[in-house]
Structures are given as structure tokens and as C-alpha cells.
């Protein structure tokens, strides 16, 4: 196996669960020995899918000021952004907050469901590659932090009532993080049989 960061070829010995094989030269993580069990990530991903639907459906934050109540959904901000003419910005936010997480989640499900049953589906590994490459663009956790920051920012201005979506979002982040952390990509890659 070659290190991704320094291209060093090295053997990766089998190791106990929870341990990490690091590159001899650059010290970067090579392999994380994880449970080959794919059921747990799958279960978490399913939960994530439910939560994803929930936090998009329920009101997100409500702003109360002088009797006026302004309720927002997750997409309200994006909608207003595009209304104000910042279409590219709106698209970027929509991409990182909605589309990428959604695509990521469903791709993961598409991979994990057959993988759990030791089956392969056409394009499954291609999809899994997308799962891996989309990872950095999945920015919901940053969005969550932004929610906290804006809460503090607006607290002085008006009363903010967090809606159920906020809790769903928090749970979604935890669940997807756990799913990703518990997923051993090699367990998926190992399913691949060299056609040659």
C-alpha cells in the first residue's frame, strides 16, 4: 500500500481494532482498524436520513420581537439570499448545506445497503468514491456552529425560539459523524473483485 501523502510503499500488518497504522515516513494515518461490521454505519445513516427529512420539514428558528413572530426554515435564508441577488452565494450555501449532505447520505445508503448483504450494485464503488470526495463539502456541522453564533448575535435584538429542526440538525450531525467515523472504507473496497 502506498501512503497517500508521501507515496511510500509499505506493508500494512493486521492490527487490533481501534488502532491505527501510520505511514512510516510521514506519520500520516494509513489505515484505521475498525470493525468490518457495516450494520452500525447503515443504521446510523438511516437515522440520519430520517433526521434530514425532519430538519428540513420543521421550522428552524423563530424570531420574536414586539409581538411579531418570524419563523424560518432551513431554506429560508437561502431563499432570501437569492432574492437579494446573491444567487451564487445562495447556490453555494444550498450546495454545502442541502444538496451535498443529501447526496452524500443517499450515496452512502446506496453503498451500504448492498454492502451489508455482501452484494454489489452497478456503480456502487463509483458512488462510494463520491461519498469519499464529497466529504469536505459536507458543511452542516459548520452550519450548526453558525446557528450558535447567530443565536448569540440576535439574542440582544430579539428573542429566538429554537424550533424542532435545530435539535434534529444537531442529532443529524452527531449521527452522520458517528456513521462516518464507524465506517471502515476498506470493508467496502474489499468487496471489489478485480474483474481481471
Amino acid at each position, binding site marked *: *500500500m502506498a501512503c497517500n501523502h508521501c507515496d511510500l510503499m509499505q506493508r500494512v500488518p493486521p492490527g487490533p481494532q481501534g488502532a491505527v497504522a501510520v505511514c512510516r515516513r510521514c506519520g500520516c494515518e494509513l489505515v484505521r482498524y475498525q470493525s468490518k461490521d457495516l450494520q452500525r454505519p447503515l443504521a446510523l445513516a438511516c437515522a440520519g436520513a430520517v433526521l434530514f427529512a425532519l430538519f428540513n420539514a420543521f421550522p428552524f428558528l423563530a424570531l420574536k420581537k414586539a409581538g411579531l413572530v418570524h419563523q424560518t426554515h432551513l431554506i429560508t435564508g437561502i431563499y432570501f439570499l437569492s432574492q437579494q441577488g446573491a444567487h451564487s452565494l445562495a447556490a453555494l450555501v444550498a450546495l454545502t448545506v442541502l444538496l451535498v449532505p443529501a447526496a452524500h447520505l443517499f450515496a452512502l445508503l446506496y453503498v451500504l445497503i448492498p454492502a451489508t448483504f455482501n452484494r454489489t450494485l452497478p456503480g456502487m464503488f463509483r458512488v462510494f468514491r463520491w461519498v469519499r470526495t464529497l466529504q469536505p463539502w459536507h458543511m452542516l456541522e459548520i452550519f450548526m456552529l*453558525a446557528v450558535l453564533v447567530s443565536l448569540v448575535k440576535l439574542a440582544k435584538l430579539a428573542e429566538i425560539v429554537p424550533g424542532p429542526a435545530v435539535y434534529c440538525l444537531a442529532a443529524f450531525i452527531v449521527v452522520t459523524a458517528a456513521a462516518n467515523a464507524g465506517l471502515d*472504507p476498506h470493508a467496502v473496497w474489499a468487496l471489489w473483485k478485480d474483474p481481471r
Partner: protein
Amino acid sequence: MMSSFMTARQLGYLSCSVCHLLCSNCPESGAEERRRCPRCGARLHSRKPDSITRTWALLLAAALFYVPANALPMTTVTALGKAQSDTILSGVIYFIQTGSWPIAVVIFVASVLVPLLKLLILACLLISVQRRSRFRPRDRTRLYLLTEAVGRWSMLDVFVVTILVGMVKLGTLATIEVGPAALFFAAVVVLTMGAAMSFDPRLIWDAGEESMTESDRSNGGIPDMPVAPVRKRSFHISLLWVVPLVAALIGAWLVVKGIRERGPRITITFKSAEGLEAGKTKVKYKDVDIGTVTAVELGPDLQHVLVKAELVKSAQGLISENTRFWVARARVSATAIYGLGTVFSGAYIDLDPGKPGKPARHFTGLEEPPIVTTGLPGRHFIVESARKESLEVGAPVYFRQIRVGEVVSYRLRDDGRTIEAKVFVHAPYHRFVWKNTRFWDSGGIDLKVDASGVHLYTESLATVLAGGIAFDTIQESPEPLEEAPEDYVFRLFPNREKALEKTYSPDNYFVLLFEGSVRGLSVGAPVEFRGIPVGKVIDIRSEFNLSTNKVKIPVIIATEPERISFVGTAPNRESGKNLFEYLVSQGLRAQLRSGNVLTGQLYVALDLFPNAQPAHVTHGGRYGYAELPTVPSPLEEIGSKLSSLLDKMDRLPLEQIGADLRDTLQGAKRITTSQDLLNTVKSLEAASKEMHLLLKTLRTQTTPEMDAALGQARTSLAAVESLLRSDSPLHSRLIAAAEEFAAASRTLKVLAEALERDPQSVLFGKGQEE
């Protein structure tokens, strides 16, 4: 040692960057650019193509965008027509100023520091790779990994702006518009992320390997490939944990800040929650917000409303058990309009801290705002009255027609007999309330018509509508003027006239014991001192003493000794009650007198009877009052004298006198019919004969002398006659005397007739004259 380190490229392999699949880099399989991973379909290349050029291009673009991203406004807040633009840095400064330093740090790091560091680090890495530096490749790789992982977090500010834009959309009140910087900033983030991705960290290591390529390649196959060391995951921390960490940090900081700034939480009980709204209604003191209502609930008894409020920390010292709360709403009364501002702003809870006391958290709210709040200079007094009169809460108090105070509250005493009202008199007027000050009801109009014309009296127009009370002091009082202390009790008089008339203190109540009938004496009858009213009858009772079988009538009077001015000092400087004792020792007595001959009304007269039998004031006598000695009334005196006269007449020995008289007459008769009398007559005859002789001799011998004597007598008689003539003074006096006598006898006759007709007039005077 170095020789054992073989890279995939050196060994002729291509490693898939996504799935780590090793593919042999056979030249025959086509150009490197077209090779794809057979497993995942990712492009395969031993090094990222044009990595340095691409990275530089993206990096420079990001650096260019970084300038406007920080210089231009990120957001434009339009609130009430006023626009305010915020750059990233001014947002950070805002958070620092408002004390939210953790947020400020987060934003500063994510939005300013991270992009900048990323730019610098990537630039450094690129330069080091281009210069084929061998300086610490391991650390440089780590640095690269860090930039790659941390870069995404710069999106934070973009998301914040998105949320703010979505959230703050309060109609025309306030809007937040995204500024041009947001787009630049997002571009910076995306470009730096792209730059980091296009950079190939393997280039860092390539610098050290170049020389040994050919020699090792000749070995062929795979020599002794190094085995990757396996470590326990001790140090590795996923960057994902930054989220909960930062969240926990912010949360903890919010909690700490909340606890530090949290003031007392209080519960106020009201009868109604009209106008109160959780989260909106404020608690104000002197029109300064000191808290907010957090909840409005129905009390456990379903009769009251529990209003929970959270106050600011500085209110801690303000709240004690004496604090009063009430809901400030707009109120209109006859004298004033209060709280007009609440019509627009909504009701709020007002409070009066009251005197310092023990801390408390549960309060009962007032339904009406208190008239007088703590700290208002002045003094409270208590006015009691049998009827409510115009003791309305808030009714004005006047002193010489100046409004000086208000009625604060009123309540029926527990015994249900009197109304007790609390009155507040503002400074400096409270100094004019003396202990002998009189309060009266000044409500309405006092209209009076009498011989001197029509009198209209009112304190002010407001009192006509709303009622009110007034006070004044009788300055002529002999008592030294003493300021009334707080909560001094006064009586409320129904009007000004009565108030300034008289008053009785319980000290000046006396009981008088009369023995005769008190017919004609009524409660309220005056007590007079030589015609000057000094008091009145309070009560008339009657008692029968079983041991002496005597009836006594106790009459209770109230007196006002101040009405009598005392000149000089008593021998032993006595005053008050002792003064009465001194007066009694000097002959002061009470007496029932007829005040009106026609109606037979009686009054009690206090007078000095120097000849009265010595008596003294009996203290603590019957009915708890001092007892003043009494003397009988003048008619009673006449009656008793008459009866004693009749008694004396009764005792005259009339029969014996008659018997004596009869004896005398019998003796006389016996004398006239006796022989002795005859003999006496005979001897008298003889004596007359002898007299005759004697007279004869007298005529002859004494006549001439007699004539002379007669002449003398005549002259003297003439003198007498002139004295007794009808026009002489003696004569006229005699006639007058005779006439007076006749008139006296006539009058006696009339009296006798009147007595015969109406015998009781002896006692009660003459009746009506027909």
C-alpha cells in the same frame, strides 16, 4: 536506510487517492492522464497534474479576493430606515464590545485568521516544494493536512450571514441584506479549499527521493518493503470534535454569563393577568427595565394568576418582603390620568421597593397602583370615620384649599364600626398637621342659606366630583402645638363647621349622678358653663340601688375644657383632670336646668356654688369615667322647701289652741252672769252718784280753768288738722301704702287661683300661656 523507502511511483505503481488501490503503471495501458481506478473510477495519477501551477493560480485568486472580503461590508442591517453596514472585523469588534468574547474569538479565527494562515501556509509549501527543500518534510505534511481539514470552517461566516438574512425579516422594521463581501469571502473559502486539494503533498517528499530512483529500480520486484507501524489511537483527534467543543464552550459561556447576570426570579400573584404577556411584559422601576415576565400561569387555586418574572442582577437589593408590585395600565380618574404611555407600549409591572426587609421571592401584587411610593417625603396619618364619606382611594387632601396629599387606602375596621383611612400628606405640608388638627370631609358642595345670605363652600372643583378631605387646626387651642407623628389617628368630621366646632377627648368624659327626674334631658343636650357650651350629653342611663332602694340617673357628659380660658395659675399648678378637681373643690357642681320653658328641655349646667357642701371628683367611678358632684336644680330646691314648710304647718297644735279659746269664752260667760257682777253694778251706781256730786263741784270750780285749757287745746288741734290734710305728704303716703296693700292682696288671689288650676306649676313653672 533510505534505500528501503520505496515510493509507489518508484516501484511503478499508481495508488488510487480515494480507495488506495494499487495499479501497475504500465506504459502500455495508455497515457497516465486517462487512467482511472478500476475499482472506484477515480483518476489515477502518480502525482496530481500541474499541482503547483494550479495551486498557485487558485491561491493567488483567493488572495486577491481576500482583500475585498475583509474591506467590504458583509451585511447591511436596515433597522427603522437606518442602514448600518458591517464588515467581518466590525462584527468581531461588536462581539468584543458586547462582552461575547468567545464568539468574537470563533468568528475571528474562522473568518480572518484561518483564510489568512491558509494562504500563507500554502504559499510557503509551494515555495518550499519549488525550491526542492528537504526541510522537515514530515512537519510540512502535517501542516498541509491541517490546512486542508481546517479550511472548510471558514464557511462559518457565510452561513451566519445566510441565517441572519433569513431570520431578520421583520417586515419593514428591520432587514439584513447580504453585502458584496459575502460573495468574495465565499470565493476565498472555495478557492483556498480548491488550492489545498490541488496541492499534492507527495511533492514535499519527492525532493529527497530523486537521486536513488534508478539504482533501486534495478533491483526489480519488491524488495524488503517496510511495515507500517501500528499505534494505538492515542493522539488522533478528529477535527469534527471542534463542533461540540466550540458548542460546549459557547454553551458553557452562555450559562456562566447567564448565572452571573441572573437576578432574582420572583413570583407575583395577581387577580388577573390582563395585559400581561410572558416574555414581553417588562418589570420596571422608575421606568427602567429591570426584568421580564417569564411565565403567566394560573395559580393552584384557579383563582389567581401567578406571574413569574426574572429580574436583572442589580435588582437584587431592590426586592424585599416590603416590595409592592402592581400592573401599570392606563387609568383615568376624576382627578388625573395615569399611564398614558402604556396605551401604546402595553402594560408593565411596576414596583415600589418599600422599606428594606428580609429577602422574599413571592409577592402578592396590588390591583391598584399605590398612591404613595417609598421615598416620597411626607407623612401618613389615619383618619377614622363612621361613614365612608369621600374617603376614596386617591381622593385629594386639602389644606387651606391647597392640594397637599391623597387618601392612600381605606378599610372597614374588623369590628365593622368605623372606616379607617390612611392619608398621606406630602412634605412640607405634613408639618401643619398637629395633634389637635381637625379633618373633615370636603367632598361635594356646602350650600347654606341663612339670614346673612347664601354661602357656597367647596375646596375645589375636583372635590365636587371625586370627593376629598381637608384639614385645619384651631390655633386658639390652649394646648401647645405639637406635630402629629406618623400614623396618628384623627377623626373625620362630616363638614367644616362641625370640625371646627368642638371635639371631645375621652379624657374629658364625666359621669353625673342625678337623683331627680331627668325628663327633658336628651342625648346631645348641651353642657354649658354660664351659658357657654363646653360639652354635651353623651349617654343617659338609670340605675336602681337594691341596697339603698334609691334611684340614681347617671348622665355621661363629654366636656371640652379648652373652651374655657384660664387666667393665672392654680395654687398648685394643676391642669387637665386635676384642674377639674381643683374646680370642684372651689364649688364646681353640675346641675340640671331648664333650658326652654316652652319645651321643658333640660341642659346640664356647670357652675360654681361656693356654698355647696364640699365634694370631690370620684375617679374611675361608674362606667369608667370620673364622677362630678351634682347639686339639685332650682325647682327641686323650691319643692323641697315647700314640703318642709308644710311639714312645719302640719306640726302646729291647732286643736289645743281651739280648746284654750273655748275655755276662755266659758270663763267670760260665767263672769257676766254672776252675782258678783250685779253687786258690782250696784256699787257702780253709788259710785256714779258720787261722781255726779263730784262733777257739780267740778263745773263750778274748774270750768273757767277748763275753758282756758280748751282754748289751748283748740289751737293745738288746728295744728294737728293741718298735718292730716288730704294734700299733706303723710296722707298721700298712707293712701299709696293702702293701695299697694290692696294690689298685693289681688296678686295673691291670682296666684292662689293659678295654683288651684295647675298645682304642678309650683314645680315646673307656668305652663303655656293660653
